[in-house]
């Protein structure tokens, strides 16, 4: 029984069957990659996991509880954090404030009318945020506006924000899309380090085969809205069905 169990999920947009009969099991503490050609339904599937979309059929269970019908913030409070394709951070706030907000969400829950105590007197939150900044190697940028960060730093910040909530499942949507090779390799190293050092499950949607094969210890191939095969990386590489559907001639 995996930490995330997707059963018979289907989703239709008008005349387009985006997902059909998706079954997926993500094992605890694994790095599970979901790959597939453009339009395979990867992002639709991800949106069904985090509460942005509600599937027409099937079930999504996280740690034995259904996530269907819950708002994104509720699913996040259950322990699923999401990293977006283009980093979603609080651009108008400083890097330190960006890091403090998930710490508040972890401590105080979805809403807390904490209107009279000063932010700077919340020592526990400040300590956690500072520690995470050090871990992400960003302590020297703590007073910068997050919008002024480089693309790679924005990604690091977003991952750090997700980690400071201590999620049990981290979902990444093409985390290296549009990155230079050096930034991509940094991100791979960071994710490797996270998965080695923390008690965390990572599910990653990715286009870049280099990233997928450096990180994943389990891969699901999605094609035309349905899983083609789920296997270990070495078997995926040699699988003729996968070659045909996705890797094509180049593999």
């Amino acid at each position, binding site marked *: 029984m995996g930490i995330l169990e997707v059963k018979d999920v289907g989703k239709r947009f008008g005349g387009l069957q985006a997902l059909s009969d998706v079954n997926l099991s993500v094992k605890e503490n694994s790095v599970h990659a979901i790959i597939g050609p453009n339009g395979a339904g990867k992002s639709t599937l991800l949106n069904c996991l985090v509460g942005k979309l509600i599937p027409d059929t099937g079930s999504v269970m996280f740690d034995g509880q259904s996530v269907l019908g819950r708002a994104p913030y509720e699913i996040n409070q259950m322990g699923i954090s999401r990293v977006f394709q283009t980093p979603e951070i609080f651009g*108008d706030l400083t890097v330190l404030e960006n890091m403090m907000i998930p710490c508040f969400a972890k401590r105080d829950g979805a809403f807390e009318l904490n209107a009279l105590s000063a932010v700077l007197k919340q020592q526990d939150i400040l300590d956690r945020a500072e520690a995470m900044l050090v871990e992400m190697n960003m302590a020297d940028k703590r007073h910068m506006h997050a919008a002024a960060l480089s693309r790679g730093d924005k990604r690091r910040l977003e991952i750090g924000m997700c980690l400071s909530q201590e999620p049990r499942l981290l979902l990444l949507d093409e985390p290296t899309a549009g990155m230079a090779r050096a930034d991509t390799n940094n991100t791979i190293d960071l994710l490797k380090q996270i998965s080695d050092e923390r008690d965390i499950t990572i599910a990653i949607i990715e286009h870049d085969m280099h990233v997928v094969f450096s990180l994943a210890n389990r891969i699901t191939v999605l094609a035309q809205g349905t899983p083609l095969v789920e296997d270990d990386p070495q078997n995926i590489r040699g699988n003729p069905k996968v070659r045909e559907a996705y890797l094509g001639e180049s593999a």
Partner: protein
Amino acid sequence: MFGLNKKDTSLLIIVACLTMFAPFILNPFPTDSGLAQFNAGYPDLMQRFVIFGIFAIGFNILFGLTGYLSFGHAAFLGVGSYSAVWMFKLIGMNVIPAIVLSVIVAGLFALLIGFISLRRSGIYFSILTLAFAQMSFNLAYSVLTPITNGETGLQLTLEDPRILGVSATADGSIPVTNLFGLEMRSTFEMAVGPWAFQFNAGYYLCAFIMLAAFYLSIRIFRSPFGMMLRAVKSNQQRMNYTGLNTRPYTLAAFVISGMYAGLAGGLMASMDPLAGAERMQWTASGEVVLMTILGGAGTLIGPVLGAGFIKYFENIFSKINDNVLHSWFSFMPDGMEDAVVFLIHPFIGKGWHLTLGILFMLVVIFLPGGLVEGGQRIKGWIQGRRAKDSSTAKETNPAE
């Protein structure tokens, strides 16, 4: 001090000094000099400065922090005024119960309107609030006449019960608003040479309440709640995926700013116990938006400056008429004098809106951060010059 850092404390002290010494500061010109009409230190106008300051401070908590632009805040001001006048009619002429009730009623009203309007954001939210405010205005104007007295406006009469006070004073007139016996209209006049300074009880009550409101807004700005509101403005998507529910945050901000508006409305009625539907009209809602943007949205002091600026123009520029202009330019030859007066005429008197509009455009185009940004630029320029001066001084030292 007061749980604030050094910078905020000094800002609070500056505002406290400005409001406490306002009767002096706003009366720089001797009473019988030609410039006396630029004096703003009379009770009526000073009360308006601080009351609209409260209104704008509250509006800024919503607009400045969350970015939700409400076009219906005058409705809360009007509701506050009506509540306060009803307290004067039913309970008595003490202002405390009136102010308390106006804040509570405006808060409840804001809770209702906010709950519905905040289902949408951006322009749709603005339109919803505008629609609600116009509905409230029209209801107050016609349908709810038994409560609001329609287009005449709600006024005190000699027949009002006033169970904790008297319906009429001994000499048969309507009693005046007071704070435990201290009449709001009582004014102490101090003559110093050619100057006359007026100290009004009502003004000082409003000023103390504004200071409290300003202090509260600083605390909110610096609190985790304030940070969450800025995060809402910055990226709602990230808020939702960080386990935070944005709805209660925006609703709380909306209700708090509605209560500020109700407080302003209650004070307005306490200074002059009548309430009319025109206080709820959309132009009144637009005015507080202008005040906040003109002063600097999202800054602490900006809304207060904006409110003072607009109210000063409204009251001082609108009083300049052609006769005044002719007396100013009487040194010119006749034809030229008439031409100059003709050119300036559209910008004064009833045309003060034109002047305000031009100033507003200039500020928005050249100082997007409002008057506060203007102040910061001047400060930066002075400091830059000083740094330059001292560096050139240092450079010349070795040569000596």
